[in-house]
């Protein structure tokens, strides 16, 4: 806490600052919400609050496979990638946090490199490889690169969490005759669950957000994810820009993020800050 006693002036100062931040964060989102409820004529009126309201933008996008299918793809690809990335990252992070073995530094260096890797550098070669081995425009064609980019995030966040775990319990389990692997699965994994949930949220947000691979490695609705599909929306005729439906789709894919952020604010902040200091 900054001050022992707080004056009304301080309260007003911090309160104003809070308000400015909340407003700046929310206005662009509320603008999308406003657009998504505007009728086609109201869209041509720049006022922030719709002059006339309609649900038709939502009914339009939610009744077409053009958006529903990508939404399913996004959820499926996101969940599978997140699950695999968190499992693999937990194994590696356990080793980093707990075991002595040569090559640990190389693993950490590699994860760091990949965290900073320019994704565009992979687009051309992966596009070519995926076409050659039949992964182009399939779920695994996106899941595999998402796992690779989720892993560094996962390894950092999880090894930070794993160091906070009371390891005497593991020793106790080993004294009782458990192998190191059993100690990992039976004793440590349950204690590590909160860190794993946090990591899973962060990795899922990454997959949900990803756009470059999603437009590069897909060509049809078979694997195209929701953000990519929005970029391919077309109007009811080629002369209308589908502003309303695009805004509605943007709001739909923002809803899960709002839910995560509202319910897991503490975890997300803890996850991002722990990875930053220690990683």
């Amino acid at each position, binding site marked *: 806490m900054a001050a022992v006693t707080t004056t009304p002036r301080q309260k007003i100062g911090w309160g104003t600052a809070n308000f400015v931040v909340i407003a700046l964060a929310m206005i662009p989102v509320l*603008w999308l919400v406003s657009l998504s409820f505007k009728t086609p004529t109201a869209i041509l009126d720049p006022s922030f609050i719709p002059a006339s309201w309609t649900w038709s933008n939502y009914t339009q996008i939610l009744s077409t496979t053009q958006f529903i299918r990508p939404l399913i793809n996004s959820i499926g690809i996101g969940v599978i990638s997140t699950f695999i990335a968190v499992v693999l990252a937990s194994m590696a992070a356990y080793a980093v946090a707990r075991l002595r073995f040569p090559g640990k*530094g190389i693993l950490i260096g590699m994860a760091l490199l990949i965290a900073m890797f320019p994704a565009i550098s992979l*687009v051309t070669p992966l596009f*070519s490889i995926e076409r050659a081995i039949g992964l182009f425009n399939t779920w695994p064609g996106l899941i595999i690169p998402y796992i690779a980019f989720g892993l560094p995030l996962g390894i950092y966040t999880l090894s930070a969490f794993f160091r906070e775990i009371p390891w005497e319990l593991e020793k106790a389990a080993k004294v009782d005759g458990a192998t190191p692997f059993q100690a990992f699965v039976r004793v440590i994994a349950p204690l590590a669950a909160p860190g794993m949930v946090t990591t899973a949220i962060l990795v899922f947000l990454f997959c949900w957000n990803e756009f470059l691979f999603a437009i590069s490695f897909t060509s049809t609705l078979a694997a195209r994810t929701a953000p990519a599909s929005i970029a391919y929306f077309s109007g009811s005729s080629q002369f209308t820009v589908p502003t309303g439906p695009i805004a509605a789709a*943007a709001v739909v894919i923002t809803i899960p993020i709002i839910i995560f*952020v509202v319910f897991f604010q503490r975890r997300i902040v803890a996850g991002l800050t722990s990875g*930053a200091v220690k990683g």
Partner: protein
Amino acid sequence: MSTTTEAVPGGATTEVAKGRKAPLSEGARAERRLGWLLCAPAVIVMIGVTAYPVGYAVYLSLLRDNLELPNAVKFIGLSNYGAVLSSPYWWQALKVTVIITVISVAFTLVLGMLLALLMHRTLFGRGTVRTAALIPYGIVTVAAAYGWQYAWTPGQGYLSALFNNAAPLTTEYKALAVIILAEIWKTTPFMALLLLAGLSLVPEDLLKAAKVDGATAWQRFTKITLPLMKPAILVALLFRTLDSFRIFDNIYILTGGTNNTGSVSILGYDNLFNALNLGIGSAISILIFICVAIIAFLFIRGFGASAPGSNLGNR
């Protein structure tokens, strides 16, 4: 990356280094094997998806390989690099990328620091502020970019209306300003969270002592907080700089790279999917990779002992 590799086996592992001449005990060898076994799947995926394709891109970049002319594939050495480096498009894209990176990172550093201080110190509503700040961080960049695009469309957007029906997305520098604005809005919270991590490491007692000694708030910030946060600031700057350097989503939606607003990532994408040129596209990929490696190298030289990851193994 040598700094990270060297620094890691400190602390807990020094005993191992000392006893390395002695044969490993059965337990130590089992631990080693388990360590490798647990890391193997992650390492295989990371190498398979990055190192191998980059190697393949190096190979592709030496070929004339146009998807429209599948029978004309031919080894042409470094000609693709020559073609890219002598093309005004590459230098224009690099210029745009550097402008966006420098300006947006500078702004996010200052704004991120202010936001971090607020998230750290505000007297009430801390949870609400943090939750609100996480929304730009979490929101899908494409969704937010459409919001900005419509907001700046004349006759349709509130921001355009606010500025006399301005149409900034149709001219080069104003469009860049909108792209940078979208980038700053989206990434300031991430910067703030990275800085918040450093801020929480500044001992409260030290600040109180300085206050008792009569240091002003500004003096406490510049003389105590900032120096102690230097490692966190460098990490945040490194991540944000490299992240900004690969900017793609915002530009793709806001301008599509028209009016000379394309970044190097947009150029690479267009070369593959519009020009269908694997050779040139790969050469661009490798050049971007080299740029990123140079930036990372310079930052890591600047880190010295505080390189990210250096304390992972021994904390």
